[in-house]
């Protein structure tokens, strides 16, 4: 470093050397971020393949008697028809740690084999450790046919009548 005192006006401006240093640094940083972004994008979710994630037309309204629970493995959900005729599609993934929850016909509840979480027919938690009810999928009924959109599971704090869809 030289001891030459710069004119005062130079103190406030960036020297050419500093500017270039900064520019190099910024360009290097940008290049790193870009390269990192590209690398990470290689990991990012690739969900287009496979059928889960799309819309399922599962059948006519009358195919599902009230009080029935019908599994659809390809869509990862159960189509539940409540006693009052309301439809509900439950994501079978346990809200605790992601195991596939089977419907126990004898006990009339969902019991997770992994950590013994249990859920009612409408997804309500009967037994922890599950922290919230089973997620649901959007159900629509068009011309008497039941459709389930598995695109995005809907989380809820407690099940309610608003979750049910009627023919």
């Amino acid at each position, binding site marked *: 470093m030289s001891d030459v005192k710069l004119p005062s006006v130079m103190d406030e401006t960036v020297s050419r050397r500093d500017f270039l240093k900064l520019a190099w640094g910024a360009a290097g940083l940008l290049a790193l971020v870009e390269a990192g972004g590209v690398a*990470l994008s290689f*990991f*990012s*979710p*690739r*969900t287009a*393949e*496979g059928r*889960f*994630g799309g819309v399922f037309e599962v059948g006519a309204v009358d195919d599902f008697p009230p009080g029935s629970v019908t599994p659809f*493995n390809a869509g*990862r959900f159960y189509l539940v028809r409540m006693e009052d005729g309301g439809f509900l599609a439950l994501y079978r*993934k346990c809200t*605790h*740690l*992601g*195991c*596939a*929850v*089977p419907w126990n016909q004898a006990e009339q509840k969902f*019991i*997770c*084999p*992994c*950590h*013994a979480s249990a859920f009612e027919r409408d997804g309500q938690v009967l037994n*922890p*450790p599950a*922290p919230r009810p089973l997620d649901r999928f959007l159900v629509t009924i068009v011309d008497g046919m039941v459709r389930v959109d598995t695109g995005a*599971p809907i989380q809820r704090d407690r099940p309610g009548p608003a979750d049910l869809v009627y023919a």
Partner: protein
Amino acid sequence: MAENPDPRPEHLPQRIWESIQRDELPPPDDRGRMRLVMNNLVLHLHPSKVARPTLKFTYTWGLGGLALLLVMILAVTGVLLMFEYTPTPQTAYLDMLKLQTEVWYGQLIRNLHHWSGNLLVITVFLHLLRVFFTGGFRTPREFNWVLGLGLLLLVVAANFTGYLLPWDQLAYWAVTVGSSLLSYVPLIGEPLRNFLLGGPEVGAATLTNFYGLHVAIIPLALMGIVSFHIWRVRKDTLSIPRRLDGKIDDGGTGSTQVEKVTTLPHLVSRELVFALVMTGLILMWSVWVNAPLEAAANPDHSPNPAKAAWYFMGLQELLLHFHPVFGAIIIPTLALGALAILPYQRFDLSAEGVWFRSLKGRQMALVGAVTGLIATPALVLLDEYALDLPGLMPSLPTLISNGWIPLAALLLLLIVYYEIIKRVFKATACESRQSVFVLLVTAFVVLTVIGIAFRGEGMALMWPWEVLG
């Protein structure tokens, strides 16, 4: 006559040999031996001279060296397996069957890889305990302790990603459960999990991601940090083993002067013998015991019980007692954080190289172990059969009733325990901290054992023979 313009040996083969091996073999004297260690790429991992007391096997138990040996076995067998394995859901499980039935020595190579990987987890854990109990993390080795923790995490990550590759039921559901732990991290958890799995559930993209991590990214990171770790050991040297009276443990009368010997042959020969014996044992074990392989992965059917990999069973046991945010995130983070700042605490006892610090340290460590051995099963039974915190406080969210409240209670108990050790038994801070460490390690091991052996269908508590039956 003019001077010889070329001082090299007369014969061509000799000239070639000397261009490769510069030092005289075998080395004629100590000076030659030291030079050989310095000039050889592999041997140069070592200093040219080491303190004789550190050669004592029952001081280091060869655990760091064993970890390195296992990494080498894993690299060789892993590369071989790559030639017989394609990471897609259609082929992965079939490749496992082919390895067992068609590929020559396929089962043996897979067994070697499987058992070495599992043994590596145990080895690095024991290595951590050894370094802790001999005070090997003290100045100037604080940061190398932190690097070691990083390596422990990488080893577990390598194991976890490798766990998925056979694509059997064990693999599929262990990874489903294990990765679901991530989704409890607030805000970023769910996206992070989807990113890692390459989608909302374990599938083809997950297999590709885990394969890439397992065969390239994690091994590269491991290699880099291991080099740093070993280089630091070489720079800082090993701590000198000492007896309770503070004198150097040299197997004799105990002196105050450290004797130094050349690395070649004193250290290198011991390493070679130990590596050979361990390789032999691992080979024999792998000939006799096959790596497990269950039915092909079936996303429609979770087995009962669905257990995580055995080294996560302590964590999974915690999850049965705490709200998931606490069991999976807060408690492990607290534990790792505490381990990382451990070497930066103030020391009120100069105990480097003394097993368990001091006589009182040994007694207090025993107290910690016994307390952990009794208290952990007691608390598990209490929570399982008697105490229903969320039931007692139905108005509170389970995050508080089954998270903050039990955690605060346990931390309070730990503080009380620490103060009792310190005040009633008049232990120093170093000895008291060690006692708490022993208590927590014992608790972790007990939880792991409960998770592995005492949890049956529906994760209900059972006796081991009932679980098997």
